[in-house]
């Protein structure tokens, strides 16, 4: 049941009516049940994993909260991490590591019989695992007090707006909102509806219209020119952004309607001028998770220059692997790590206000090219395709009329409306800015979004890319 389907509209209509009728505790129980129904629509069998993760981490956190012996606490934390990452590793990475091991053994002349297990990837496992892990670590660090209510914790883990594709929420943000009665303001309803509409625009108009252009170039039998590859990489940059930011905005909007605030996950990531800045604006909930629970745990930047670089590389390679069990994601992570190292070495990375000047526009455009090469690695069907496409970019650029007619013009037709609104939003630093714009401007924007989604949006229910992560 994806957000842009009629099924979800029906589902949420029922949930919302019940939500408005019930008292606080009833709301929480109803939301918990609805979240399990929502998750069960994909594959009810994986509900047991969700429940297992919920119960184990609730109990471990309770133990960590009352135990004072640091040694025992450490062991409890290790057990929780082993459980969570063990499940994630098995379901997400078993086939990948096993296949890779067989191939690598072949390189040194060993023949290994592959153990074939048809392991299905439970949807959302990467997201809820990171949430429960952050909760246990926060309790271990005594940054938060564990909740005493299993139902509240279960709702924190399974809350349907974030369950299958984030944002990866912290307990310190969501649990207090679950535990306390909520009020719904008019501003939240207006803001929530805008975010839902804007998210639908990003997904159905931007991402879904760019997908066929990208697929044509990255398809297995395609032999595109370097110019085609460049434009398709730009298109994919906006496709994945529209897809994921759209999902996040709909999630935030739906949650806002229920009076629950989720964190901003994307903040104009293609207007930045350095890799450091990019990761403060792209998938913010993941990048802050990696920073707080991995990079800092590895020593962060406290151990000297070279170890900082090492920590950046480790963090980003693992971050790449989080996105999927394939070598292209590992390479993409390594590329991001390398860019962060270079950015740090040259002193880039200050977060500057979104004020437009020719120099800033040029810097943002160049940074966008750096980002797009990363997307080329990310989108490629294989490492071989990365190599072939990279070579073509530099040796067979050959732009043609077809590049213009079939790729660039259709891409600009979709991307330019997004950029126009984004430039205006970025001046105020928020995608929610339009709800406070003057009435004629606001209505004109609402109308344009309505028409563009209705007339040119994809209504065939294309899946969100990030569901596979």
């Amino acid at each position, binding site marked *: *049941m994806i957000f842009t389907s009629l*099924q979800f509209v029906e589902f949420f209509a029922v949930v919302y009516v019940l939500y408005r009728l019930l008292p606080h505790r009833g709301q929480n129980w109803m939301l918990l049940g609805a979240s399990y129904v929502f998750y069960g629509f994909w594959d009810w069998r994986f509900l047991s994993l969700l429940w297992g993760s919920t119960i184990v981490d609730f109990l471990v956190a309770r133990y960590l909260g009352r135990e004072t012996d640091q040694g025992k606490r450490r062991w409890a934390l290790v057990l929780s991490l082993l459980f969570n990452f063990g499940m994630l590793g098995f379901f997400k990475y078993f086939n990948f590591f096993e296949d890779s091991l067989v191939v690598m053994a072949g390189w040194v002349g060993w023949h290994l019989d592959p153990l074939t297990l048809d392991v299905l990837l439970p949807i959302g496992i990467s997201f809820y695992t990171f949430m429960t892990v952050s909760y246990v670590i926060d309790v271990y660090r005594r940054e938060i007090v564990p909740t005493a209510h299993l139902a509240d914790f279960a709702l924190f883990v399974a809350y349907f707006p974030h369950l299958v594709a984030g944002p990866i929420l912290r307990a310190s943000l969501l649990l207090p909102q679950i535990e306390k009665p909520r009020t719904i303001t*008019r501003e939240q309803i207006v803001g929530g509806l805008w975010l839902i509409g804007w998210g639908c625009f990003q997904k159905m108009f931007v991402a879904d219209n760019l997908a066929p252009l990208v697929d044509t170039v990255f398809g297995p*039998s395609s032999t595109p020119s370097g110019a085609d590859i460049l434009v398709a990489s730009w298109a994919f940059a906006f496709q994945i952004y529209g897809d994921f930011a759209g999902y996040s905005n709909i999630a935030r909007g739906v949650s806002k309607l229920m009076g629950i605030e989720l964190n901003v996950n994307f903040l104009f990531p293609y207007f930045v001028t350095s890799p450091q800045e990019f990761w403060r604006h792209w998938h913010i909930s993941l990048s802050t998770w990696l920073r707080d629970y991995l990079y800092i745990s590895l020593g962060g930047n406290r151990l000297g220059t070279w170890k900082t670089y090492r920590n950046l590389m480790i963090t980003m390679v693992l971050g790449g692997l989080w996105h999927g069990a394939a070598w292209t994601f590992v390479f993409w992570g390594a590329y991001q790590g390398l860019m962060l190292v270079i950015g740090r070495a040259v002193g880039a990375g200050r977060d500057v206000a979104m004020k437009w000047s020719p120099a800033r526009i040029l810097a943002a455009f160049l940074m966008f090219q750096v980002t797009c090469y990363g997307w080329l690695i990310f989108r490629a069907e294989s490492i071989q395709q990365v190599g072939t496409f990279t070579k073509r970019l530099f040796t067979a650029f050959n732009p043609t009329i077809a590049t213009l007619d079939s790729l660039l013009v259709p891409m600009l037709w979709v991307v330019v409306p997004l950029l126009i609104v984004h430039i205006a939003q970025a001046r105020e630093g928020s995608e929610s800015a339009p709800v406070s714009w003057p*009435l004629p401007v606001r209505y004109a924007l609402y109308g*344009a979004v309505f028409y563009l989604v209705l*007339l040119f949006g994809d*209504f065939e229910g294309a*899946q969100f890319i990030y569901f596979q992560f």
Partner: protein
Amino acid sequence: MAVARSSPSAGVRWLLLLLILVVQFALLEAGLRVYGSFEGTTTFQQLFTTHPQVGVVLRPGAQIRYTTVEFTTDIAINEQGVRDDAPLGPKLPGERRVLVLGDSLVLSVQVPLAATFCKDLERRLNGRVGSEERWRVINGGVQGYGPVQEWFYFDKIAAAFQPDIVLIVAFVGNDAIEAADAAAWLEQGRPLEDKQPTLNQMRRIVRSSVVLQYARMRWDQLSSRWSTGTPERPLSSYLSDPPPIVGQGLEISRKAFGLIADRARGVGARTAIALMPARFQTDDPDYGRLAEIVRHAGGELVRNSASERFRTTLAPLGLPMVDLQPALAAQPDRIGLFFQRNVHLTPRGHDVVGGALFEFLESSGLTKAAGR
């Protein structure tokens, strides 16, 4: 915040919103008329006119250039109202004619005339060694036709084209649903638009506006999700447990095709049927995508079930029949057989279909029956 500082009344707000929506509508309408590239554009609609006993037909003498991101095609309709550069005069001595009936998959506005499977079939028939017959394959396809409209078109117009063979190309993707929708027409023996003036008026308004045609297309997509659980109504023909309308549509198709065969016999022609598959029946990623959508809606998409249902339903007619799906599915690059956005045959797909139809006509002995 503006919400707090500006306080026009609710009436003024609604009026402003309405005004803005109307202005945007007008701008979109103008923009799409000039730059639009879909079948609702007025340029494309110039291809069609209405016939009192048939409904929509191709406009004799119409000429347009149709452009989308995937193709640009020059389309000409001859004086008899079929897609051809040359008129259809009386049959010449030694000339034999194949009339191909069908919908947009036969008309094929996506490719130049020379690349259509009708012309491909014509070349193959005229290229047979040792034959002195001159074949003419007439493209009798009209966008949006279903079995009932094909019957009307043949009965009132195309039977006069003096065909030797009538080849009905049944698009298994939507013919059952379209036949079911036209059940009352078949019963009455004519299109029934005249008896629904209000609905007709609305249809005319919608047809006159590109924006409204887009909106209607969206409405059809959304309403099909409500009614059949599939992204498009015709997909219900492929469900493991199809709704009753599919069975009704199959029966009406058989009746309409039977009427065509009887009428063809009356003008000395033999009739055959070709079953045209939908793209996803040969395109694996497309099938995977649609199967997933249908699965989420609680159904099961069975890939070739509509072809099988048509074959079974039409078998009692006793007409020669060929399923084009195996020939298309046997191609090495199956994804390139249909356009990706406009889900019709590419020139390569036409080439494969032309070859398969030629083999079929030869092997079934239809081409040998010169003296009928």
